[in-house]
């Protein structure tokens, strides 16, 4: 057995070479997926650098909710493609990523809330995404443990039911892509921090790390909450503000909930894991910060609102609370884009509180962008230029608490 663990590494250590065709900064789901799909297209002289361990950023901190029921015609096809890629991912990387499509319910407690869900249900139906409006009687049968009574503080009026939504094992996704990339000869370098990036006449030329200098003409910025600090290295400002997002998990309980529940009105979302733990999440902290310490006011808020929905959690004890630093854009949509002023600098950022579900589609389109030197249609709406052309892709209504 010991020998097995010694020889069957998920990925291997390497010395840092002095040149790579592509350097990806950030070994989260987006960086590793980009590396994996680059390898599949035959580009293998690639290094993925991370200053910490693999998946130690938001890819190891998120609540792993996947769904495609967005609101805009620009975003829905993109997230739907990502969900489709996730459905095939266990086969693709030959590693069980434990995707459970248990179904996802977004609650509305007000008339305007219901109207918002109607718009989404229609937009989803037009673009072939399975989601529909359901009302308290049906909600009760889907989620018997939830308080759907009129006596609740904010009675539930309706919900957007999205059956293909669900929960995945986030670490497994990261490891699966990492192993897949490693097997194709791509190098993964944890504990390798980028300190500076050189340009030569507006073209990326090198990356400086704590382990040495690397010559390269292509850099992918996939550093989520820290993406502004990387962009600053090439004198680029981004339309991004970093905010902490917190979550917590209770001790394991008997199974009582097999749907993902989100309420924007109550600023909370809840689901029960396969192990029985109840995961509770919230909105971002209301100020910019790179400090990932958790706070008591947010824990109180999550607990209070989760209890409004699930009074049976009254006696449940919280095991852990944590946070991650999220790269928030003004329109709650990502920036997957080249940068006109710096050739060879590619952004895959702005994933905020909602980007885990987008890993496969983000990584795949970034790889395609590098290989073909053309922006794939699926990500045209997410170019950096949208902020200068008045073409924002407003997804706040569908992503602020739902993530």
């Amino acid at each position, binding site marked *: 057995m010991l020998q097995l663990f010694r020889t069957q590494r998920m990925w291997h250590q390497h010395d840092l070479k002095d040149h790579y065709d592509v350097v990806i900064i950030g070994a989260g789901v987006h960086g590793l997926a980009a590396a994996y799909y680059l390898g599949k297209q035959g580009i293998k002289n690639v290094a993925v650098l991370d200053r910490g361990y693999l998946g130690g950023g938001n890819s190891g901190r998120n609540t792993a909710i996947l769904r495609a029921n967005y609101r805009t015609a620009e975003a829905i096809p993109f997230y739907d493609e990502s969900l489709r890629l996730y459905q095939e991912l266990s086969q693709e990387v030959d590693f069980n990523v434990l995707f459970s499509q248990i179904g996802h319910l977004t609650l509305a407690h007000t008339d305007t809330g219901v109207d918002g869900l109607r718009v989404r249900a229609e937009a989803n139906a037009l673009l072939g995404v399975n989601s529909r409006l359901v009302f308290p009687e049906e909600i009760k049968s889907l989620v018997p443990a939830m308080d759907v009574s009129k006596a609740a503080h904010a009675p539930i009026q309706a919900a957007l039911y999205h059956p293909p939504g669900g929960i995945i094992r986030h670490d497994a996704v990261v490891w699966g892509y990492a192993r897949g990339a490693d097997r194709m000869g791509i190098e993964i370098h944890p504990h390798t921090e980028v300190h500076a990036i050189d340009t030569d006449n507006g073209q990326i030329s090198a990356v400086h790390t704590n382990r040495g200098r690397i010559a390269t003409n292509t850099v992918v910025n996939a550093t989520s909450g*820290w993406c*502004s*600090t990387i962009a*600053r290295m090439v004198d680029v*400002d*981004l*339309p*991004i*503000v*970093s905010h902490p997002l917190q979550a917590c998990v209770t001790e394991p309980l008997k199974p009582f909930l097999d749907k993902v529940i989100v309420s924007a009105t109550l600023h909370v979302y809840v689901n029960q894991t396969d192990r029985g733990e109840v995961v509770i999440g919230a909105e971002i902290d*209301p*100020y*910019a*910060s*790179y*400090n990932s*310490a958790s*706070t*008591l*006011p947010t824990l109180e808020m999550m607990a209070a609102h989760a209890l409004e929905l699930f009074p049976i959690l009254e006696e449940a004890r919280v095991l852990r609370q944590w946070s991650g630093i999220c790269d928030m854009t*003004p329109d709650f949509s990502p920036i997957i884009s080249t940068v006109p002023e710096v050739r060879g600098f590619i952004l895959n950022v702005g994933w905020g509180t909602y980007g885990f579900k987008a890993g496969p589609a983000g990584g795949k389109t970034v790889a395609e962008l590098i290989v073909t030197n053309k922006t794939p249609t699926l990500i045209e709406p997410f170019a950096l230029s949208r*902020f*200068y052309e008045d073409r924002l892709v407003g997804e706040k209504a569908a992503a602020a608490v739902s993530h």
Partner: protein
Amino acid sequence: MSFLLACPNCGERSVYEFRSGGEFRQRPPASVSSHEWARYLYLRKNEAGETTEWWYHQLGCRSWFLAVRDTRTNLVKETYEHD
């Protein structure tokens, strides 16, 4: 880590009494190009370190003021009224 902010009028209070107004930026003159306006509207330094930002004492005296805060530690170095 939640933290304390010293309102210039009311003194030290929990950050939850305040609303963040984002980083302090110099508004350009109306004559600049629409490209420059877009930069002003959307781009941010998003500093990992000391940053000067607007705060509003929502649950107190309801005035706006500036604070210098380190976004890595959330330690507030100083607060002052804008003139």
